[in-house]
């Protein structure tokens, strides 16, 4: 497909135009100066020179806390139903996620695969299918980034709807899907075809960005070593001592999909079933009714987290459960550091 150029001075007018037809979720500055993904009220909210956000935009498809359905009526206390029943509150808008980083978008691709396995999660896909993703590739890796090793950045080759590369005064625009093509076609007056020189400049920019990575790990070799059980138990024990069971690594992870289902009684004859993010580092995550817990020891839970991301998920989907965004490193109170653990495994 043909590549395009969007001048930076045209970016805000484009966003303004898009915002008339879509809900735009983009990096905005929170009150404390933090860059977070949120729906914009004006195109001027959008921040495009940000280091990666604290959390990935996963929650716009898989919210931290959501009502799956609610019930109302006498039947839920005793007698058989008479009309009343279950209500599903799920509503969606047409959305654009603007400025999502390749690692986070790779997380979305991962969830696309996972949530379609055997049964489709309609809550996720209702939102997902209504969304268009405009990626912003990364010219500068951040402190804990290792997407290059994970194969999820700093730029993607496919999978996206639209991907932007920062060429100083302009964005190099690549189209990766029909949805993306249609969008560009509809707003074609904002774009012009990329020249041969610009194409070359884009390639150079990507190469340069890739060269800047300090952190490099070999996911396949690590997985092999783990599969062969060549990792000393003492490593997991050391991590377990550091882990403070906050669940943060799962909450900030672009690929973590676990949730718990809970019921809340909201009235005499009414209530709702909700789902809330969960984490495999909690002991209640596997404890069964009656008290038996197959992963009672924290060491086993921490170990499993790494096995799941680095070994089992590649076995299941051919995709790593880690996109190399480094968020779990930033959020960990015990300084557990994914690339460092991988280096440790390779020792």
């Amino acid at each position, binding site marked *: 497909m043909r590549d395009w150029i969007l001048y930076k001075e045209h970016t805000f007018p484009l966003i303004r135009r898009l915002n008339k037809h879509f809900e735009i979720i983009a990096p905005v500055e*929170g009150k404390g100066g933090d860059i977070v993904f949120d729906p914009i009220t004006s195109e001027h909210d959008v921040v495009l020179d940000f280091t990666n956000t604290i959390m990935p935009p996963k929650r716009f498809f898989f919210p931290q*806390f959501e009502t799956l359905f609610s019930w109302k009526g006498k039947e839920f206390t005793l007698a058989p139903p008479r009309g009343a029943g279950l209500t599903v509150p799920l509503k969606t808008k047409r959305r654009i996620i603007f400025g999502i980083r390749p690692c986070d978008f790779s997380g979305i691709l991962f969830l696309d695969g996972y949530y379609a396995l055997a049964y489709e999660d309609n809550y996720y896909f209702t939102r997902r299918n209504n969304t268009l993703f405009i990626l912003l590739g990364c010219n500068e890796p951040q402190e804990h980034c290792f997407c290059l090793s994970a194969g999820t950045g700093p730029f993607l080759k496919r999978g996206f709807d639209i991907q932007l590369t920062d060429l100083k005064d302009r964005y190099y625009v690549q189209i990766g899907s029909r949805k993306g093509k249609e969008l560009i076609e509809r707003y074609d007056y904002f774009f012009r075809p990329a020249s041969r020189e610009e194409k070359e400049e884009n390639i150079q920019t990507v190469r340069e960005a890739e060269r800047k990575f300090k952190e490099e790990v070999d996911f396949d070799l690590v997985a092999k070593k783990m599969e062969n059980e060549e990792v000393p138990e003492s490593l997991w024990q050391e991590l377990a001592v550091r882990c403070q069971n906050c669940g943060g690594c799962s909450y900030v992870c672009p690929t973590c999909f676990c949730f718990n289902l809970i019921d809340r009684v*909201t009235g005499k004859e009414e209530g709702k079933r909700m789902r809330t993010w969960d984490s495999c580092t909690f002991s209640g995550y596997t404890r069964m009714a009656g008290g038996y817990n197959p992963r009672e020891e924290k060491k086993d839970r921490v170990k499993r987290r790494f096995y799941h991301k680095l070994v089992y998920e590649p076995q299941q989907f051919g995709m790593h459960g880690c996109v190399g965004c480094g968020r779990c490193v930033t959020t960990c*109170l015990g300084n557990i550091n994914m690339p460092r653990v991988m280096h440790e495994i390779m020792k």
Partner: protein
Amino acid sequence: MKKILTTCTYCGCGCGLYLQVEGNEVIGVTPSREHPISRGSLCVKGWNIHEFIQHPDRLRTPLIKKKGGFEEVSWDEAFNLIAEKFKRIKKRFGPDSLGVLASAKCTNEENYLLSKFTRAVLGTNNIDHCARLCHSSTVVGLATAFGSGAMTNSINEIEEADCILVAGSNTTLQHPQIGSRILNAVEKGASLIVVDPRTTQLVSFALLHLKPRPGTDVAWINGMMHVILKKGLANLDFVKKRTENFPALKRKLAKFTPQYVERITGIPKEDLKEAAGIYARAKRAILIYSMGITQHVTGTDNVLSLANLTLLTSHVGRPYTGLNPLRGQNNVQGACDMGALPDFYSGYQKVSNAPCRRKFERAWNVKLPQNKGLTIIEMVREAGRIKGMYIMGENPALSDPDITHTVEALKSLDFLVVQDIFLTETAQLADVVLPGASFAEKDGSFTSTERRVQRVRKSINPVGEAKADWEIICDLSKKMGYPLNYESPEEVMEEIALLTPIYGGIYYDRLEKTFGLQWPCWNKKHPGTTFLHRGSFSRGKGHFTPIDYKPAKELPSKKYSFILTTGRLYYHWHTGSMTRRSSTLHREYPEGFIEMNLQDAQRLGIKNKEMVRVISRRGKITIQALVGELIIPGTVFIPFHFKEAAANLLTNPVLDPKAKIPEYKVCAVRIERIER
């Protein structure tokens, strides 16, 4: 969806977080990465804070007890009844027959207003709050030694220390951010010494773990000082220039030889010597302590002893060096600062000090009582004298020691009003229940353990007819004939700044631009204070108080052969009214337990996870036994969160004579196996 920056309502660390709001519903959390404390992380409670906020169990309307049951009523009806009852009690029995408990969960502005209401409208100084139960011994002890009862340093300074001594604090669980800073310091090469009868997570990172028998803290601290003096590691130059009363201390220390200390505490003398050497030789030594030090009948003595230790080694009053009590509640520091105490107005201005009183009388335009009021435990213990109580956001029916007595006392009151967000054990005993707002539903400020005053921002409207607590106080005050007219909490803070020197420069516009200001902040230009006592102590010279070792009040006997010590878990907060309504937190620890040593369990034939009966002179509970080696033999631990197996049915209500803090950390119990 939108994200609103606010301050966490759980512990004293004071993390900055964004609440994710959709419509009028909080559906998630994002930690602030720019915030100096949260730095992109939260503990499990913070991460799940959205779950309790709009829980269906929230109180939505005022309730009045009629014929034994609660009836939903209008705010007007509730206020009229309260005003009438309080006026009648005041007229008949005098203002000192009324008592008020403020709340370390509520904002500074709310605590200030409640203090004003108590003193100016009810006309009594009978106001106190849960700081009495956690750090009153710190306030008294450090006021004596240094002149100011707060953390001398800031949380982030801990990372730069080269020696950290943690006494009686399960820091990674109770102050997760501070625990994380300790880990960082250790990674950078700092030596960590943990003093605790339990093997906490921090012990894994410690160079030394001293395990004293509960209640013997003065002995090991004196022992360390004895060793330091003997080895010539004291900073006598500092002692001479910046302290007073050293000779008396020196005399007192003479008998605390390592051998003598070992006999009392069980700490091997070699370990004590080594710990003393490491601490004294450090260049930047941070001493951290918490409830394990304060909640004793000798709580003030313990704090004074630690202060002595820092003075002797000059480990105070410098960057990365000092004595740091970790305050538990999100705003327990603030509630103290605001004068929710029987003897202080805001900013620790004494009610007994006539010029101070005159200042507040002028500002509040009313004559103020001058005698010191009663403390929490005294109010409850003197229920005969106290006829009516107003309790805002506290749950003494589960959190006081010996709650059987507390519940009886609360029941015997003529009139009890409880303002809370859930129908707590205490609220169930009330005549009138007022629905307050959670931290997500109001504006205000909290003051964290490092004296950082930061904004709390309204994210959603209060549930049902609930109101912000400051509005409730204002409305009630008006009904009682003393209108409190404030447009917003910001206006309240302006009054606080005017009347409170240490908050003199704290205004909302300044808090907007930064992540808060650390007091003392004397004026609008003052940048706030990172660490205290630079150059000189708040009181001038550091004061040594010689302390003798006194055993705990209730020692093990033949019939009650174990020492029970109580505390908290990571997943739960205090009486569990919030955390037990959060599915993720509750699932981790759905019920209480008693932690005991394997040797003891084997002797009694108790297996892991078996139910046992625990009996003290005051009550008994049935609870699951967790058997292991994380606690020393002879001592057992029970978290106090669980009403079904309430540790405080067992605890001893004996008080520290100076600070009136109860001895939660030591009482004698017996453990019985339940025959199946």
